[in-house]
């Protein structure tokens, strides 16, 4: 984890998940897994966040909310789709109100499968995302010319 130069803050939004993945995301923050010890904090403010965790598929009502949160996040940022529903719509893909996975709407960097995704898998996904975040940061620095 040497590449983590800053404390990455995360924001979590439940698109249309059944809660299963959401409570597992919260479980990552609490004593058994405790990712806060790496400086990872769950913030409610998109403008403070580096990592966007989305659970659940896209539906008509939450489409603008997801876009809005993503638009407000400072660059560089990474998006982690958590659970089968965020990947493809999961068991609900045939429902009339589900448009599909989150990548239909915003670019996704890491996909974490599972129904529900286990905390270990979520943490692994976030660690992978942090690697991508670092690369994006480097690329932005180069582009700016320093």
């Amino acid at each position: 984890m040497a590449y983590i130069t800053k404390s990455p803050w995360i924001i979590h939004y439940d698109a249309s998940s059944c809660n299963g993945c959401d409570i597992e995301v919260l479980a990552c923050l609490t004593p058994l897994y405790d990712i806060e010890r790496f400086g990872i904090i769950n913030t409610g403010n998109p403008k403070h966040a580096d990592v966007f965790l989305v659970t659940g598929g896209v539906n008509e009502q939450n489409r603008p909310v997801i876009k809005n949160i993503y638009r407000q996040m400072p660059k560089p940022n990474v998006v982690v789709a958590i659970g089968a529903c965020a990947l493809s719509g999961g068991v609900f893909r045939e429902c009339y109100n589900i448009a599909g996975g989150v990548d239909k709407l915003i670019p996704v960097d890491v996909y974490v499968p599972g129904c529900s995704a286990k905390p270990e898998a979520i943490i692994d996904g976030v660690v992978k995302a942090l690697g991508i975040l670092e690369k994006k940061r480097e690329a932005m620095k180069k582009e700016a010319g320093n």
Partner: protein
Amino acid sequence: MTGRRTVVPFGPQHPVLPEPIHLDLVIEDEKVIEAIPSIGYVHRGLEKLVEKKDYKNYVYIAERICGICSFIHSLGYCQGVENIMGVEVPERAHYLRTIWSEYSRMHSHLLWMGLFADAMGFENLFMNCWRIREQVLDMMEETTGGRVIQGSCKVGGVRKDISVAKLKEMSERIEKTKADVEEINHVFFDDSTVIHRTKGIGYLSKDDAYHLGAVGPTARGCGVAIDIRKTGYAAYPELDFEPVVESGGDCYSRCMVRAKEVVQSADLIRQAIEKIPGGDIDVKVKGNPEGEYFSRVEQPRGECIHYLKGNGKKFLVRERVRTPTLTNIPPLVRMLAGCEMADVPVIVLTIDPCIGCAER
């Protein structure tokens, strides 16, 4: 002096809410005059899927209505289909279903107690509740293979059995969990910070609770003694318990009800383990359901009804789920009227909103 009325939007993405719900709060100075809820952010339309999935396969969809009360949803659905088809479920399966239902209740209530503490800004208590909750999830994972989605209920019984040795171990470990919960309950009951944030806040009278259709701990916290477990499904008729009722009608009472129910659930699990008979865990189910049935179960949040209708084909014609959160929204709107703006997160949490259930 009265100030000008302002509308403050609350949600759908809000730090205190793990799930999206939107409230328009009409406020005058710091006082909430009216709360107008709007929902639909997690609507998937899964009731209509019964037309596409065979009635035995639909169990896994029913289980994913909500990831917190997952087991009880699948139980409600299976119970409905079994009643339409006249399937006699073996006694052992009834007991296993009861044990897993009570584990679900424990994990759900502990989760809620944590979130509630978090809404009050009591981080340490939040962490401690979730620490204890992991013990419950470990038991779930060891017996069913899943932490929050178990997949162990099926039409005609259950998928997995628990060995005698494991049951014995479970009854020992549940005592430890119970002791931990009792220790933490003491903080919820007696700590001055908690009392300051909850006592007299978000009052709902017994009459209002009844007439607005409150269910579960929201109703029981106002002195209305409804508990669907008392109607006697699964193995509940053989277990000895009384619904936990508090008469305060405020946030403190609703919190007390849930805190005491965790201990009660631990007790029910112990009783069920003592009484569990041997035998099969499932029966073969043949044919297709024809007829209709209202299946009622008590979820951590209150009464949940699965209405099922079949016409002799392998796809059901209609499923309708009436979930506790949806029925608890009108009481919530009543509680919010007249409260302080700063108390809104605490009051919203005391109905234990589960939006995944409410919007399906």
